[in-house]
């Protein structure tokens, strides 16, 4: 079976579904949202991360690299992407973890062992596992296998999706899942394409299809001032959710924060925060009221 790359496993997650959870982050995403706070999640391949603040300029990576791809400059280590084969020898020798390779394959069994360690915390809190990313639905065969294993072990399963996948995949995964965390961003297809790189038609149609099944759904909306907090967008979204088959589903507003920018630098990218701003408490209140007026239960922050 194809083993997808996992770029992070976080414990004591308290914002990704009920109870105390473990969240598994898969690499690979069909969207490229402008505000993405996990930029290493977008590419499905192994990536080299470099944290300049940790580097002690010991030159060990420069010496060890078989391709001579690393170079120590005034700004720290620079890697020549044309020479680098992502072999990871630099990360192995790096004493400070300034260089890390993001993404490692897990077998279903390995991943299950990690998840099972958390059972005492699930038991006391009603928690479980959340598969996130990236887009976990890009790996349906693997995802269904691990969901089934978790189900057999009595572990509550949540899948955090952007919904931009084939409908049959989504509905099949739904048969093995207890809770969907379904992300919505913008209602206008053009604006959606502008900010995320893809249109939203499939995402919206998939949510309607998912709402026709019995699976529990929680909608998650990242709220970014100046991008999607306008009256028109929020009203359209509220109308859409209110009209879902089976009635409106509860919604969490995830207020945008500029804290994620540091991760872009690790990938050697510049983060352009232009046009993105944190919503004020007033904005959050105003938006919540629009949803609440249509009978949608709103919570702030997961």
């Amino acid at each position, binding site marked *: 079976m194809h083993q997808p790359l996992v770029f992070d496993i976080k414990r004591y997650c308290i914002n990704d579904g009920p109870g105390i959870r473990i969240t598994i982050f898969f690499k690979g995403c069909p969207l490229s949202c402008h505000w993405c706070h996990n930029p290493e999640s977008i590419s499905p391949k192994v990536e080299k991360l470099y944290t300049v603040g940790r580097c002690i300029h010991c030159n060990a990576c420069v010496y060890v690299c078989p391709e001579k791809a690393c170079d120590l400059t005034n700004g720290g280590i620079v890697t020549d992407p044309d020479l680098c084969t992502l072999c990871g020898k630099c990360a192995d020798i790096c004493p400070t973890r300034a260089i890390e390779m993001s993404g490692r394959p897990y077998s279903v069994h390995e991943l299950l062992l990690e998840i099972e360690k958390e059972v005492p915390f699930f038991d*006391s809190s009603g928690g479980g596992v959340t598969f996130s990313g990236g887009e976990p639905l890009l790996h349906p065969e693997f995802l269904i296998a691990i969901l089934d294993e978790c189900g057999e072990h009595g572990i509550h399963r949540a899948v955090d999706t952007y919904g931009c996948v084939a409908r049959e995949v989504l509905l099949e995964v739904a048969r093995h899942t207890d809770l969907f965390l379904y992300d919505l961003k913008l209602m206008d297809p053009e604006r959606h394409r502008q900010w995320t790189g893809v249109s939203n038609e499939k995402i919206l149609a998939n949510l309607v299809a998912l709402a026709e099944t019995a699976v529990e759904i929680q909608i998650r909306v990242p709220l970014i001032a100046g991008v999607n907090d306008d009256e028109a967008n929020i009203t359209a979204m509220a109308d859409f959710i209110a009209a879902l088959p089976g009635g409106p589903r509860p919604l969490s507003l995830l207020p945008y924060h500029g804290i994620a920018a540091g991760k872009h630098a690790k990938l050697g990218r510049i983060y352009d925060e232009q046009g993105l701003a944190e919503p004020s408490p007033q904005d959050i209140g105003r938006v919540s009221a629009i949803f609440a007026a249509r009978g949608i239960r709103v919570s702030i922050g997961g």
Partner: protein
Amino acid sequence: MATPINSTDKPQRQAAAEGNFYTEKPGQLGPGMNPRIQRLRKLSVDTEPSLSIERALHETAFYRENYGKYSIPVLRSLNFLDHCEKKTLYLGDDELIVGERGPAPKVVPTFPELTCHSVEDFEVLNTRDQQRYTISEDDIATYAREVIPYWQGRTVRERIFGHVPQEWQAAYEAGLFTEFMEQRAPGHTALDGKIYRTGMLDFKQRIAEKIAALDYLNDPEATDKFEELKAMDISCDAVILFAERHAELAEEKAATENDPQRAAELSTIAEVCRRVPAHAPRTFHEAIQMYWFVHLGTITELNGWDAMNPGHFDQHLAPFYAAEIKAGTLTREQAKELISCFWIKVNNHPAPPKVGITARESGTYNDFTNINIGGITADGRDGVSEVSYIMLEVIEELHILQPGNSVHISAKTPDRFLNAACRVIRQGHGYPSIFNPDVYVLELMRQGKSLRDAREGGCSGCIEVGAFGKEAYILTGYLNVPKVFEVTLNNGIDPVTGKIAGIATGDPCSFNSYEELYQAFLKQLNFIVDTKVRVSNYIDRMFAKYAPAPFLSVVIEDCIEKGKDYYDGGPRYNTNYIQCTGLGTVTDSLSALKTHVFEQQTFTMERVLDAVAKDFAGEEFLRQTIVNKTPFFGNDDEAADAIAGRVYQDLLAAIEGQPNVKGECFHLNMLSTTCHIYFGKVLGATPNGRFAGKSISDGTSPSHGADTNGPPAVIRSLSKLDQTMSGGTLLNLRFLPSLLKRDEDIAKLGQLVRSYFTLGGHHIQFNIVDTATLRAAQCSPEDYKDLLVRMAGYSDYFNDMNNDLQQEIIERTQNEEL
């Protein structure tokens, strides 16, 4: 109160260091449920601790006059009676609960019979930056004239240090262990419920019966028992007299009081003080005052460390509360006011000042009275009552250092109580700490306590457990386990001083395997523990013979029955503890050498030891490699956790079962209090990458910043230790306030606690980090690798963020601070 000298030369008092967690606002009295409590609290926190020489003067005069006329126990009790008869009383304007150990709040007496402070000691205490105790030049001069000459050469401390063998002295000075009893009496005492059913007159009756039944024909100890019982009887009279004097004072004040309401209060105080402690209390007010007189009696008779502890105070008060609420003679508000008054009373009593090494390791005003709230009752039911909730409210409101407090969460404890406690924790003062009765009952039963006595037990001081009201569990001192390892790596020499501190266990560079290294460490460990135990046993006998505690013996089960003192095996159970510190540091150091020298051979032993000797100067590559690429304790990593488990088992093997002088034995607990800071200061760099002089890990917590896999991984690592074999473990976890924003986050914190306790955890405490901590983390990121930032859909470690973003987190934290 005496006027302090040179007050202008002294540094500013540090409010938070003295436990005033409340930021003063101009024109306001500060926290408290009503103006009375606000004024009492303000007086307590505003008053700087000072010293009173009154007790020492009374005692010196009494000893000069009477030493040699009586047996030692009787001499001690007559000395106590004499002081209770003469001491200056204090009855403050707003007080409902009365009585001070010194002549006024925050005034601390000295105990020259144990440790006689020198003029130089007083000068230091008077002017040092932290934990200052002021004293006037006049008082110092009087002390030099009246007190010091008499006690010179006669104090318990001098007699101990005159006796100790050279190897003990060497190890003690190297900082391999501390000795609690060298200048303070063994304390760590908590009470059960007997004083709420039994007055001092009832105790006197029981004592008289025991005296009448003494068998001088067949019992060779009958004479000693008579002297001890007589001393107990006199000490009961002393506390009754002390209370009567307060009753008289209250009546005098009532007679001249113009405010009718206050006059009525004073009359009530007089009535209460006439009733208790002579008789058992009948009301909620009397019950609290009863305990307070017993508390004052024990901390005046001697300076036991920790002070004194009411044990399960909410459980003891609950029947009085319920009866009076039902009868309509007490309101919830009145009960809360009385509890607030009691809380402030405890805060009025800073620890007696320490000197020498003990002052270095325990630099705090805290005298470690720890109120146990919740838990289970002696017959195994849930112990939470309305009084428990009132106490949490008082803690939340008052923001003071003392008394310490803990909540006890068994499987039977309702979530409502746990969540109420977590909300108080959210305030970020580190209180209350959380204990697991389901585990400590097993710990106590493993040590031989009956089920009922174990259930009535709990923690006193920090995390150590005992059978309340029935046990002398003597903490004999901390063991610096990483220092034992350091001395091993230096073949018996302390590299910090170059002096011999242990025994030769071989040159580590000659070791061919990790096992050889480990066996050398074990040999050193056993030598050091044996050295310590020998002297602790000697000191124990010194107290039994020369500084008995007849009043304390009255209130501890079986002392009257046996006719024996608290320090002489009188209590039903008699335990000695050695508190082991630095499990994380020693585990990580062993793991570093195992991984990098013996397994992966990244570095040679010579190179690592050389780097450690140089405090890693020029060896940043080596140090960083060790810090970042070694399995460390607290990450649910089997390799590291196996080392920790083995060290823990071997500490148990070294300590457990060593005989004490009371026919019972030593046990281990894993406590550090503030000693991990002192132990770090006397320790060179360690192979886990820790720099010389920095703190070692506290209790059973991971080394600072070594745990990078989140709280569940820490908990799983800790749960691999069989904690029921100890007399207490300690886990500190740091949390950012953003993890505790919403009600559901608070519930999840409680669920995390439940998980740990299901897995066998003894204790957990949360430090909710403030902006100052985050700024410290920016300066030394390595020590703060565990700081998790969790926000919706995003999580990271604080360390991994760049400077701007860290700044943003600091600002957010500031906004979230109360």
